[in-house]
């Protein structure tokens, strides 16, 4: 992956990418699953660096940090500032990230985490497994009823979502309409 693409993805999340470059990047995103996965991880990092520390109610920060960092280059010595998403990601983009960075971020976040989630020891953090997956990630969409029926229900229920939720659900529907080829993750389940 080129450095330029990563920088563009970072700028996109910051709202700093020029409009004329956005369209080109979006086309690349649609074609390239790897780019989309990277963008997804950057989004997670946004949560860790900005969202979660500001909102102490969010749990499992330490685990999600490890997961997000696992997918980025793990051998850099660069330190990551904890108060700037843009700077942090650009730093990661440029040179990867060191285990010490993870520790720094974790310590910083743990000071305001109110839950009792145990924080991994430093030694544990330095041996992050490459096979670690993001705990927050669900296996995907799954269906007991037919996709067509679920689509019908979502359309009917749509007006009863609060406005931002409606926009979120509609965005997901047009991207992964149940029953269309874009919905890649249907999994049968008989019970929860």
């Amino acid at each position, binding site marked *: 992956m080129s450095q330029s693409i990563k920088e563009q993805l970072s700028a996109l999340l910051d709202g700093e990418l020029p409009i004329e470059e956005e369209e080109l990047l*979006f086309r690349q995103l649609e074609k390239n699953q790897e780019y989309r996965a990277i963008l997804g991880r950057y989004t997670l990092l946004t949560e860790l660096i900005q969202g979660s520390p500001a909102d102490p109610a969010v749990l499992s920060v330490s685990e*999600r940090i490890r997961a997000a960092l696992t997918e980025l280059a793990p051998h850099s010595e660069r330190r990551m500032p904890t108060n700037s998403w843009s700077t942090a990601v650009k730093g990661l983009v440029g040179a990867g990230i060191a285990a010490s960075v993870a520790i720094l971020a974790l310590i910083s976040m743990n000071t305001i985490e109110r839950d009792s989630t145990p924080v991994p020891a430093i030694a544990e953090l330095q041996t992050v497994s490459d096979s670690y997956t993001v705990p927050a990630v669900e296996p995907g969409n799954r269906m007991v009823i037919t996709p067509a029926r679920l689509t019908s229900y979502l359309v009917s229920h749509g007006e009863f979502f609060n*406005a931002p939720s409606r*926009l979120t659900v509609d*965005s997901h*529907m047009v991207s992964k309409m149940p029953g269309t080829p874009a919905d890649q993750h249907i999994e049968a389940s008989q019970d929860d």
Partner: protein
Amino acid sequence: MTDWQRWLGAILVAWNGIAAAADGPQDWLNRMASATQLVSYQGTLLHTCAGVVDVVQIVHRIENGRATARVTSHAVAGREIIRNPDEVMCVLPEQKSIVVETLQGGSQREDSPMNKMPGFSNVDTAIYKLAMLQPDRIAGHDTEVIAVRPVDEYRYGYRLWLDRNKAVALKFELISEAGEMLEQILFTDIEYSDHIPAADVSPSIPMDTFTRQHSTVSVEPPVQRDQSPQGLMRWRATELPAGFNLTVRRSKTVPGSLDPMEQLVYSDGLGSVSVFIEAGVDEDELAEGLSRFAGTNAFTTTMEDHLITAVGYVPVRTVKMIALSVRPLRESP
């Protein structure tokens, strides 16, 4: 400009600053609710779920107090959802089909005493706790950040980044009962305009050859075919999480189907669950279990040859509790 005018201007600026600083989270959420009906805009947003990002275009147009929104996929040209107060349209170009749902008497629904649409204005603080977080900057705009945290595990939490000038949500996160982000939308660019053409909220591709599946939704209580002399049979959830109440009961007729589908909407004022009750469903579709579509959960069960499904942007335990408690109850005539 005279000195007097300069002083007055300075005082007004200072006063506005003090007033804005004094605004609490509910004030901002009320502003956002108003902006939904007042502010036109278009932009690009990223939808993130389970680490996967999709790009979506949104046009939100206000005309005479009526909001119409078109959400368009960036990946599939022409795949879009268009909503206005009277109609919802899903355009599916790969299937060359359009799914249209007309809301009969849509404009009157606002008058119904049952009908309190879920929203962020006047959040019930016995159920959700509100907090202001650190201000942030999204898509070149300063934002106020609000956290909405439920007091129990029967509903989701939210975080909203509201444009300080327009009160439009530029970033929105759905937070699970475990405190993890389930879904996020994030504007990468947004343009406010009072002059968005009507064509920009119309279908973006020609649909002459598309098949049209049209259903009509009515707010009148459905008449059950098995109505007995003892009274009208109505379905009802008998167990609900605290704060949830029945807000809407309506029926949906689909061409070719003898039995209208009944929809009961339960809401705590912010979150909502629809219970769909269908008769005449093929036997092989009568199943029990969970369906999940990102943050939306649906739990399906059967009773007396009816398919009962509770659907909502709520945790699994909530849709499961409600679906399994649905019973046919007879009301006196």
